[in-house]
């Protein structure tokens, strides 16, 4: 007899998705990730629209990584019209993006992941016993939000990143304030690494065939932007060739497609960035990486949590460096005029949860083609494989425990389900 074990609605993730595992006397028969959010047609609704208005709408695909969507769409649009931002503007866009990274990682690690390890059903219930951790989470989240407020206009759906630069830049005093708070946040980020170094002993999904994909960082700066994609099997390709190497296929149980590289699922995200680019880390993050090298298990998706913790340290330090460089170049002109010409541009950047692709074509000032692939859409196939591996290991356990382990496996990917479903193009 086969028994279905179903989690209708995976909690503590962004968006609406479910897990379905069918278990029988001889083991696991079927594993499915059901993606059940309604469609929002982002590509279709922005085609034919003015470029600036489309750029205001794209970030609304997802709130957890709205800055990632805004900045990737902006880069694709600027490439399409043949504009390159000044280096100091690019640095400040990096800073805005880093605000998103810090907030998103802090939120994911402390509020979405940690309750499972500590035996709670929600993070708010942890307040009495784990007051420090909740306070750290809020403080890290707040500095990420402040960066997005000051540089992006707000923490969710930033409007102050526009073609050519910014509408208005923060004041010198606001940069100083961000720097001071980032310095205060650095020990909290380091504590996060210590905390997760203990938890990472918890569960394993050992997938020795796993392949990781990440950008090859531009100017050798670990992080967000790049012109080539690096694969852990040694292959590299220019971002413009993404369609050849990231191949999407339809699966019938999901509004979102699954992605494959050389016919196999692959992983993107913090762990993939560490696997491909750890040699570019510096400062405290490099020290901690060397100290905990063994815990960055490339074959275990749960190590993605630990990789995010290390990235918190890296991005806090990197943000301080960018602010110091900006202050040294002060005053900075906020914007250059952009002439909106016809053209086509592809940008692939590192969102908090992995690669995000924007390919935009502009004709007569309007979007004439849009293709968007999000990190969660790329990760869905491998997520499903790892939920299956987890189920195969624990199928004889209590169903409630199996459910929890299956949810934890998906949570390790920090999925953004709204992202994945709203931009599918079949």
């Amino acid at each position: 007899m086969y028994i279905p074990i179903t989690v209708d609605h995976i909690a503590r993730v962004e968006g609406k998705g479910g897990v379905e595992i069918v278990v029988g006397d001889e083991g696991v028969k079927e594993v499915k990730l059901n993606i059940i959010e309604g469609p929002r047609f982002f590509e279709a609704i922005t085609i034919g629209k003015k470029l600036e208005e489309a750029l205001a709408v794209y970030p609304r695909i997802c709130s957890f990584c709205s800055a990632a969507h805004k900045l990737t769409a902006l880069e694709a649009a600027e490439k399409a019209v043949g504009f390159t931002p000044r280096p100091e503007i690019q640095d400040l866009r990096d800073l805005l993006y880093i605000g998103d990274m810090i907030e998103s990682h802090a939120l994911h690690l402390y509020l979405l992941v940690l309750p499972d390890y500590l035996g709670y059903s929600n993070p708010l219930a942890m307040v009495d016993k784990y007051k420090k951790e909740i306070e750290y989470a809020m403080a890290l989240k707040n500095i990420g939000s402040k960066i997005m407020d000051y540089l992006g206009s707000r923490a969710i759906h930033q409007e102050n990143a526009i073609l050519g630069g910014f509408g208005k830049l923060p004041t010198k005093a606001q940069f100083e304030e961000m720097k001071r708070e980032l310095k205060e946040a650095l020990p909290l980020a380091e504590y996060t690494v210590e905390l997760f170094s203990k938890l990472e002993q918890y569960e394993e999904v050992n997938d020795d065939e796993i392949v990781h994909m990440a950008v090859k960082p531009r100017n050798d700066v670990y992080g967000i932007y790049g012109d080539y994609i690096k694969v852990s099997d040694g292959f590299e390709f220019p971002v413009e060739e993404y369609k050849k190497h990231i191949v999407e296929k339809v699966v019938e149980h999901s509004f979102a497609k699954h992605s494959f590289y050389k016919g196999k699922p692959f992983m993107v995200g913090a762990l993939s960035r560490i696997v491909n680019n750890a040699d570019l880390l510096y400062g405290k993050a490099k020290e901690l990486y060397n100290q905990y090298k063994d815990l960055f298990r490339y074959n275990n998706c749960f190590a993605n949590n630990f990789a995010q913790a290390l990235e918190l340290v890296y991005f806090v330090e990197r943000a301080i460096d960018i602010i110091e460089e900006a202050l040294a170049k002060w005053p900075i002109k906020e914007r250059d005029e952009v002439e909106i010409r016809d053209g086509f541009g592809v940008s692939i950047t590192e969102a908090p949860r992995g690669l995000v692709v924007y390919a935009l074509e502009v004709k007569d000032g309007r979007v004439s083609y849009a293709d968007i692939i999000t990190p969660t859409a790329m990760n869905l196939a491998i997520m499903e494989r790892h939920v299956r591996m987890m189920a195969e290991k624990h199928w004889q356990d209590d169903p409630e425990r199996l459910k929890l382990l299956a949810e934890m496996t998906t949570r390790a990917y920090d999925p953004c389900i709204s992202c994945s479903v709203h931009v599918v193009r079949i």
Partner: protein
Amino acid sequence: MSEKIKIGFYALTSCYGCQLQFAMMDEILQLLDKADIECWFMVERNSDEDKEVDIAFIEGSVSTQEEVELVRKIRENSKIVIAVGSCAIHGGVQSWDKDKGLSELWKTVYGDAHVKFEPKMAEPLEKYIKVDYKLYGCPPEKKDFLYALGALLVGSWPEDIDYPVCVECRIRGNPCILIEKGEPCLGPVTVAGCDARCPAFNVACIGCRGAVGYDVAWFDALALEFKKKGLTKEEILERMKIFNAHNPKLEEMVNKVFEEGE
């Protein structure tokens, strides 16, 4: 209120930004002493959509047949229903191109593919259920949440804002993006409460809080101004529809400006 208030936060089709904004408020820790969370999947694993609550916060547009049934169930189980954000109140940016129709949008994105859920054109909650209060914005400001919850927790009732973003822009002393820079700012017809956030960054308002209520949103007066600046009717409608596509007055008022002028 002596007993704890029961709250639920429910999501339809959206970016989850309204609940993220709510979850990310430091003040939420103070609320916990006064509230029981019966349903909130983004933070609580033991969430139950069938439980009765005092206040139901709903974000997202109604975009599948399943969501129609869900909002009806939430309405039955709730004393107060609060529509949170642009999707729940106005259908959201996913309504921007609703004139194209569901089947054309579906074809552009999904081709001939079939999925096991029944999709619908994104619609506001009020199309299906009675809504008691609205928190405007994409997403709403933190103070919108605090004000509404504060008023409700002391047994009072929050009021709607009935003036446009322009008022807050003047108070902040921002230069006028519409008049001085000639950009298509929607501040004059958009509900205030954001402290003129975007114009303060020299970015024209795109109307994310929706049109001012009580029928005082003068789409026609603004359309006339835009027309003088050389925008076509289509351009004006496109911009106003980013967040107002379901507004019943919009087309009528903009059309009037162009008919009279011809």
